């Protein structure tokens, strides 16, 4: 807590007096990482968490950071949030250096992180309360957001009375409350069942299309990344680094069972498979051979791709 506890000038009233804006075509770079590196020292010496990384994210772009665990994707997200400080390099958000967390960069966590002692409505109003926004506006705003995520009927429920998917929708509504420029999502749907996840993908896509905010979405699920992203940043492990970037040019809204999506996902899975094998070999520490085609590769997976 202490290292983050610097008061920052960036905390100010955001545009709650305006309704949710339908912004179209916000130009320019939203987030920029310039040779950002993170390492820390422990008893085995220096541990490199994230190797020197440069990345520009356009305003309104939906970027997925995709990779196996330990690839530094969550680290990268925490750096952008301002929750971590880089060892080297520069991070900019809308041209200004990132030095501390800010309501302009809202975050959604894997377990929703709704406050258990507040009702859903109060959870959504909490960030507005921090900005001393008066009660009338708070209520109007939270109602609007609750309707946006289809949870208005559950406004007075406590988080433990909601399902996992509802909690995540609540967390998304809370993140939107301060009308942030950037939404950071850290494997928000990893703990949900497949059906709920598909529904939430559609919701996120709808919200992205509606408000054109910049989304940075961390996942280890290839299909999820292909389903959502304009661009996938593929990351590898040991040390965490960017392997390559893949633009997904599929039109939106994307149907959940699009065949082209499966093909792209397959190609990406192949790239990841070699990475995973590398890690497995390292962890097994002697001659390890991943069984052939064990990791979602192989022609039978192409689902008619050669027809």
């Amino acid at each position, binding site marked *: 807590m202490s290292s983050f506890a610097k008061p920052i000038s960036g905390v100010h009233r955001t545009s709650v007096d305006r309704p949710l804006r339908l912004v179209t075509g916000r130009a320019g770079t939203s987030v920029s990482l310039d040779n950002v590196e993170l390492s820390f020292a422990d008893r085995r010496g220096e541990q490199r968490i994230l190797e020197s990384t440069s990345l520009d994210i356009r305003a309104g772009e939906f970027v997925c950071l995709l990779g196996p665990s330990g690839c530094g994707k969550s680290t990268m997200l925490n750096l952008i949030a301002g929750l971590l400080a880089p060892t080297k390099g520069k991070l900019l958000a809308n041209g200004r250096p990132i030095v501390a967390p800010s*309501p302009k960069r809202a975050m959604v966590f894997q377990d929703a992180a709704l*406050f258990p002692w507040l009702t859903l409505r109060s959870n959504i109003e909490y960030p507005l309360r*921090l900005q001393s926004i008066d009660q009338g506006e708070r209520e109007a705003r939270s109602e609007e957001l609750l309707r946006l995520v289809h949870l208005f009927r559950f406004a007075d429920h406590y988080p433990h009375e909601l399902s996992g998917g509802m909690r995540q929708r609540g967390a998304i509504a809370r993140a939107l409350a301060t009308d942030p420029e950037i939404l950071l999502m850290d494997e928000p749907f990893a703990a949900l069942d497949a059906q709920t996840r598909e529904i939430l993908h559609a919701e996120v896509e709808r919200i992205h299309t509606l408000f054109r905010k910049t989304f940075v979405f961390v996942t280890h699920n290839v299909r999820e990344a292909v389903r959502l992203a304009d661009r996938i940043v593929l990351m590898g492990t040991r040390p965490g680094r960017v392997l390559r970037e893949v633009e997904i040019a599929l039109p939106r809204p994307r149907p959940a069972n699009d065949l082209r999506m499966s093909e792209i996902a397959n190609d990406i899975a192949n790239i990841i498979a070699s990475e995973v094998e590398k890690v497995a070999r390292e962890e097994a520490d002697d001659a390890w051979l991943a069984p052939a085609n064990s990791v979602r590769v192989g022609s039978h997976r192409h689902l008619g791709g050669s027809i």
Partner: protein
Amino acid sequence: MILSLRESAKDGVLVRAVVTTSLRLFVGYGVALALGIPLGVALAKQRLVKQTAGPLIIGLSSIPSICWLPLSLLWFGLSETAIAVVVVLGSLLPIAVATENAVRLVPPQIERAALTMGARRLRLLLSVTLPAAFPGILGGAKLGWTFALRSLMAGELLFVSGGLGQLLETGRDLGDTALVVGVMVVILVLGRLAESLVFERLDRVVVRVWGVAT
């Protein structure tokens, strides 16, 4: 038993004893809460405090609080302060230790979420960390309450005048078993009353709101 109690009640001894004991309990327990919760938070959040005061507090908590009474009597004389010190020391440490635990066990995402929304320092502590730790702190407060009651009874039995503890001693001196048992029942009723009026209600709130039992 009823007769003995009625007799004590008639000349006001019982009422005075109940009032004296309750006052001592409330003051001692109140001070213990007021000091113990901030101490626990400091132990959890400030590394310097943890490293310096941490071992001391663990060490001190292994001294039964009644052992402080002789020292307290030497310093403060046969006074209310002396007994208050014993009560405070008896209940402060379990409250502080439970608070420290509860604060340390607050899921980091909860505080991180609040940070990204712009909460800082005191605001973060009061509006997020403490509410998040509340079920655990309540557990410590309950523990502290029973410790306060025990310390006070021991203190009153041993040295300090007035109060239910001394009434017990009087009963023994007079060989009045009925009085002794009667006073024990009164102590039990006091303890139960605090439980059902305060702690059980708070427990129900925790179950309803947090969805967990303490």
